[in-house]
Each structure stands twice: as C-alpha cells, then as structure tokens.
C-alpha cells in the first residue's frame, strides 16, 4: 500500500444536495489533478449534519443521481463521502460510501448513533450492524463514523481483520474553550483518542471533520492523519475549509508491527470465549439483536 490521500474538510450546506455535490466534485477534481489516489470527505458530507426532519427528504438509495455522479467521478480518483442512505429495508442510515473505478465498492452504516446532549441521531436514523472492511485497490480500510471511534469494538474488529487504515469521518462540534487548554477541547480529545487507536491497532488513521456552523453549533475541524506509531503526520489547524494532503504506506505498518508485535500476540479466542460466556449468562438480555 502506498496511497496519497486528500482529506477534504468542507463546510457543507444543510440539506442542499446540489450545492454539496458541487463542492465534492470540485474537491475530487482538484485532488485528481494534483495526483492524489483517494479523496476523503466527512460524515454526512453530502447533506450537512443537524438534518432533523430533512433526514428523509435528502435520503438517497444506492445508485440515485448524486451518488451516481460520485461513481462517475471515481473513474479518476477513489472517493469516500457521507450521505443519508435509504436502505432497501426502508430504513434511513448514516452512511459512508466508497467509490472506485466507477463503482460503489463499500458502504459503512454508522453503528453507534449518538443520541444524547445536543445529538438526536437515533430519532431519525437506524443503526448499522457491521464493520466490514472496504477492499480498495489502495488498501484495506475500516470506516468508523464519528461515535464508532469512541467504542472499542470497531477499532478492535479492524485490528483483527487486518485493516491498513481506519477512516474516521465525523461532524464533530467544537466544544471547550477553557484557558490554557491548548486549543478547542473537543479537537484535543479527538487527537488523544485517534492517537490511541492508531497505536493500539497499528494502523493509519485518517480523520476528516468539517467546519462551519449550523444554528450556532460550530464544527471543530482538526482533520488529521495519524501514523501507526500514534503520531500525527498531518493536521489542518484552524477552522477554515481546507485539504490535508497526506501519504499512507505499508512500510510504516510493517515497522510498527515488527517493533511492537501486538497483532502476533493478540489472543482473540479469549475475548470470543469471554463474550460468549457473558451472552450465555444472559448479560446481553434486553439489548437489541
């Protein structure tokens, strides 16, 4: 794997698919002309975030117009972008699609919807149930959409599945402006979380957040790439839209995995056995199936 990524930190317009699609097309075209292999956008990048009753109005079935446009653009560059998916089951999902060579090759439906504080995703969306790898010609990618990266199971499954990189799209609001805090609190916290996952899963981490405001809630930016040693190799500072141009490669993965053979020494069967015991003892009764 040796992939040049463009991470596009956008300011989407809430619920305006046409305007947002135009932003995606421009960023993809720029990335392709600059020689990037892949362009990554944030969570719900095609729609904006606090959609509420707009959720169903901007939902797209696979293959619908705007998604077909991304498929078309992916003939020149691989593209990952966020949208509201209207599934074949009629449910709406917070989806992140990956298009390559004119085809949609993978979709991650956000598993851990956020419904607390200012967030109410579960009011409008259904949760996904899988963390399938996306097998791109540029690498094996696991998508953790925002809150998915705040639970251990996603990164752990990516680790066991042998992902090369975690793609972490988000629409994370800026919170925390305390004195001596070294920047926006939420952005600093993201940095610690993502650095930990990169280090512990020995993968690259590509985090794409957004900027701009939706009714007073500002999004914190902080788009970054973290290497498998947990170090930032690129970070978009500030709160402007922009592009982070970063390279991820297999060589760093190999070095990290030789220096610290976490994958070799992982004993997944213990985890599987203990979880099975817990399930058998009824520890998960009442949880969704």
């Amino acid at each position: 794997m040796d992939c040049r990524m463009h991470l596009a930190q956008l300011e989407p317009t809430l619920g305006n698919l046409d305007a947002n699609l135009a932003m995606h097309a421009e960023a993809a075209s720029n990335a392709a002309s600059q020689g990037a292999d892949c362009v990554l956008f944030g969570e719900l990048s095609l729609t904006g975030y606090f959609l509420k009753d707009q959720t169903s109005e901007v939902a797209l079935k696979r293959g619908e117009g705007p998604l077909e446009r991304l498929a078309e653009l992916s003939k020149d560059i691989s593209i990952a972008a966020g949208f509201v998916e209207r599934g074949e089951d009629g449910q709406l999902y917070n989806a992140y699609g990956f298009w390559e060579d004119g085809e949609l090759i993978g979709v991650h439906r956000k598993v851990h919807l956020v419904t607390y504080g200012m967030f109410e995703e579960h009011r409008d969306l259904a949760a996904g149930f899988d963390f399938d790898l996306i097998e791109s010609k540029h690498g094996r990618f696991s998508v953790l959409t925002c809150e998915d990266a705040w639970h251990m199971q996603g990164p752990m499954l990516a680790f066991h599945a042998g992902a090369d990189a975690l793609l972490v799209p988000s629409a994370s609001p800026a919170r925390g402006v305390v004195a001596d805090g070294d920047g926006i609190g939420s952005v600093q916290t993201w940095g610690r979380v993502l650095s930990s996952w990169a280090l512990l899963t020995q993968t690259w981490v590509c985090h794409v957040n957004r900027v701009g405001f939706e009714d007073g809630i500002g999004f914190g930016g902080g788009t970054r790439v973290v290497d498998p040693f947990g170090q930032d190799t690129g970070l978009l500072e500030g709160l402007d839209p922009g592009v982070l141009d970063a390279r991820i490669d297999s060589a760093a993965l190999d070095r990290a995995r030789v220096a610290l053979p976490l994958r070799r020494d992982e004993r997944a069967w213990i985890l599987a056995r203990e979880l099975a015991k817990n399930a058998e003892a009824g520890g998960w009764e009442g949880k969704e199936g």
Partner: protein
Amino acid sequence: MNGLDVSEELTADLLVRFLRSEAGKFGFERVVCGLSGGVDSAVSVALAAQAFGAENVLGVMMPYRTSNPSSEADARVVTEALGIASRKVDISEMADGYLEGSEVTDQMRRGNVMARCRMIVLYDLSVEWQGLVLGTSNKTEILLGYSTQWGDSASALNPLGDLYKHQVFQLARHLGLPSEVIDKAPSADLFEGQTDEDELGFTYEEVDRLLVKMIDERWTEGELVAEGFNESFVRLVAGRIAANQYKRLPPIIAKLGPRSVTHDFRYLRSWGR
C-alpha cells in the same frame, strides 16, 4: 484555574466566525445593536466590528429621560474607540405615551416597557440599516431570567449567550475595550443608583462560580453545598433558573395535528443554507 476562565483568543475567533457565518447564510453583512454603555453590548459590537467591519455595525443609544447621562457618554466612548456608526434615539416620548397615559408607576413595569420600546426601535432600524439585530444577553442573565422578555432579550444573533458574565469581562479586556465600560458596576440603568448585583442580591463572581458547576458540570445540590456553597443561595439560584425557563423558549403551542411547529416540525434556521 477557576473553571470559568476561557481562552479569550479562541473564544473571540469562534464568535467572530459564528457571526459572519450565521448572518451570511441569510444574506446579511451588517448588524444593529443597542448600546447601554455597559460591558455586554460593548463586547457584542466589538466582536461584530471584527466580523463585519466597523462600518457595518450600527450602535444605537436609546436613553429614557431618567437614564444616567454617563451611560450614553460611556456608549459614545465605545463607538468612538471601535469606529462604528452610531445613532441616538430618545425613547422618552415613545415610552411616556403609554406609561403616562396609563399611569404606570411600578418600577419593574416601567423598566420592561422601556426595554420593549428599545426592541421596537432596534427592529425598525434593522430594516433601514439592512442588518440583523445583535443580542447582548450573557449566559448568567439568561439562566437567571434577569432580562425583559421580548425586550433586551430579543435578537437575531447573540454571540454572548454561552458566556458567563465573568467571561464577558475577560473578552472585554482581551478586546481592549475602554475602561469606562469594564470598571463600572453593571446596571440596567432603570432608576438612579441601580446596580445588577444589588438587585440580584449576590455578585456575578459568586453566581458564575455556582452556575458553571450546577449547569455545565451537573453538580447536585448536595455536592454544591458540600463544596462550600451556601444552601439557601444554591436553592435561590436553582429556583430562579427553573422559574424563568419560559423566557428562554418560544410560546407554548397546543398540539392538535400530526406535525406541529415547536413540537415535531423540526428544521433548523439553517434549513437549506
């Protein structure tokens, strides 16, 4: 660290971006703001001057005949220091047309009428100036309900609504605002000698230290008392916050149909923008 101090630079940057972004979505690049001569309105217009340029900010002084002349003088110091446009509209006749005719003598009622007269002036000037009405209510007064509903609490955009009074003072110093507005005791200037802290019965510093724990950090009453806060003070403040919730929300609409405004017709103002 007192749990209250903010990074002034970061906060100002976010608020300037907030003003520009939210006004810009609706095609506005100008704002109009009432200037009381106090620290809140001074900080609001200073942020707006950074966001839109001083020439796009109109500060309006709206004295009533009993207002302290020093309030207007202090407001003028602010407009001159920032280089923003200014206007004076004396609301005495407008307010007295009702107050005298209806023989309103109650101090609070008179103050509320004056605050609502100022709101009428600002919303009218917003059309002439082609700018949004800029709010000046801080988080402390919003939580305590220390404002006039549809009066000084009325605005289109409020950059200070998530800042406690302590933090507004921090920003005022950071923005280099004149000492005239920073060093004086905050006052609604509705009658002679009035100060906010006399009227509230506690200081902003005291209540801000309590509010940040009670609201932002969700401490319980028991935990706050154990921490050293006076129990009756905690109860007084908690009671005020709950009693004034009505001021912070839109009017109550009786639900009848399947989709009702404010209940389950859910769209942001940013809808499509």
